[in-house]
């Protein structure tokens, strides 16, 4: 009997802790602890993310090398040898280009850009999410688009805390983005992901003529997403005779597995 009471007490303590954490998070009195943890974890995450990325690169290079011919192998080996010597210079060069692109973009639009570093991936294994080191304090809001390189949209913010945010990539199965094709008819459609394996465009009427190589951009129909951000190019079109809509798979110019530096687009009049 005494043992039963002890067990019940222990479960009551567990439930108590859980209730305390839940209420603390949603009321907000645990926010300083959460922010402190995020601040402590961020530098470690950032370094280990880079390390994992390098390990991943090494692995994929090794796998590719098995399939490539001798000439490509020699070129890659030479590239790897010079990579270490040029790494510092390259990082500076990339950051410089990135900031220049940001400046150009801001001058052209009613949006401002916040540069963010990818510090990790979301813990949901079935999703393609990235963790960014900028949050509410930097002006990030839910729904804000994420761009990489030269105006290429890669996802949207789905969750924001004070000092970090989580963005869902456009190749995630549950992501959706209004888009248009830069063809003669300016065909509109809906972009969604294919389980992290690729990106497709749906709801394209059968009457619209689209061809491989057509460029797909954001349509501007979503309030926070400016028009004209590049999504990719049409790779293949599938259309059944009895289907109402056509579907197209897209080739993205960005490698979603190697994102390190991105920008978050925020409306200026927010």
């Amino acid at each position, binding site marked *: 009997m005494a043992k039963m009471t002890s*067990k019940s007490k*222990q*479960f009551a*303590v*567990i439930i108590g*802790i*859980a209730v305390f*954490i*839940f209420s603390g*998070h*949603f009321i907000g009195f645990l926010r300083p602890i*959460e922010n402190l*943890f*995020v601040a*402590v*974890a961020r530098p*470690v*995450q*950032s370094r*280990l*993310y880079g*390390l*994992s*990325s390098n*390990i*991943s690169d090494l*692995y*994929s290079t090794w*796998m590719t090398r098995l399939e490539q011919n001798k000439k490509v192998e020699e070129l890659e080996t030479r590239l790897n040898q010079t990579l270490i010597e040029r790494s510092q210079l390259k990082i500076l060069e990339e950051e410089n280009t990135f900031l220049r692109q940001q400046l150009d973009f801001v001058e052209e639009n009613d949006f401002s850009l916040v540069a963010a570093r990818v*510090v*990790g*991936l*979301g*813990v*949901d*294994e*079935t*999703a393609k*999410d990235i*963790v960014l080191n900028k949050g509410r304090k930097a002006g990030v809001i839910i729904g804000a688009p994420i761009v990489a390189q030269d105006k290429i949209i890669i996802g949207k913010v*789905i*969750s924001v*805390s004070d000092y*970090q945010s*989580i963005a*869902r990539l456009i190749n995630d*199965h*549950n992501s959706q983005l209004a888009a248009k094709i830069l063809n003669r008819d300016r065909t509109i459609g809906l972009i969604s992901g294919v*389980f992290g394996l690729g990106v497709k465009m749906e709801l394209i009427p059968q009457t619209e003529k689209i061809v491989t190589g057509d460029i797909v951009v954001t349509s501007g129909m979503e309030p926070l997403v400016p028009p004209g951000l590049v999504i990719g190019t049409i790779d293949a079109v599938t259309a059944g005779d009895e289907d109402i809509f056509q579907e197209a798979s897209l080739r993205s110019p960005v490698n979603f*597995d190697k994102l390190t530096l991105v920008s978050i687009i925020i409306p200026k009049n927010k």
Partner: protein
Amino acid sequence: MILTVVKNFLLILLVVVWETAMRRLLPGWLASINLAIIFLVYFGILKHFRLSIIYAVILGAFLDLYSPIFFGAKIISLSFTFFIIELIFTRLLTNRSVYAVSLFVVVALFLESTISVGLKFIYLLIKDAQMDYSLWGTSFHWQYWLTASIINIGISMIVFLLFYFFSNQFKNILLQR
């Protein structure tokens, strides 16, 4: 006391950093290593599974800071997993053998994954009125499960051997005639 708190905090930090910054970026089978489950299983075996539930709640809370589903998803999935293990499986697996550790790890992996996917399914159903059955298909592919089970059993065996050789936690008893 302070040393224990610091030690446990560092362990939790290690698990969170592994889960968010490393695991899913790593190639091939390395991405299947679930340190959260292995950490909690060992905690349960070495201390008590009820303590594992408490740690599951705390670890889940920190992991939930990086969860796109909703705050509490990881708390629920991890704590319920170890609640079920404490309720049922501690009566089936009663010794501190490498076989028991392996089975605990596989059972915990399966339970945690099932609860996580179930929660996401319900979340999408409520939020987007969308019944995404594909979640079950991608998460429970037999090949993924086979790989994940083998890899995590392998890692838990390495941890077992480390404990065996460098601590007094798993002392062998030879039955002599």
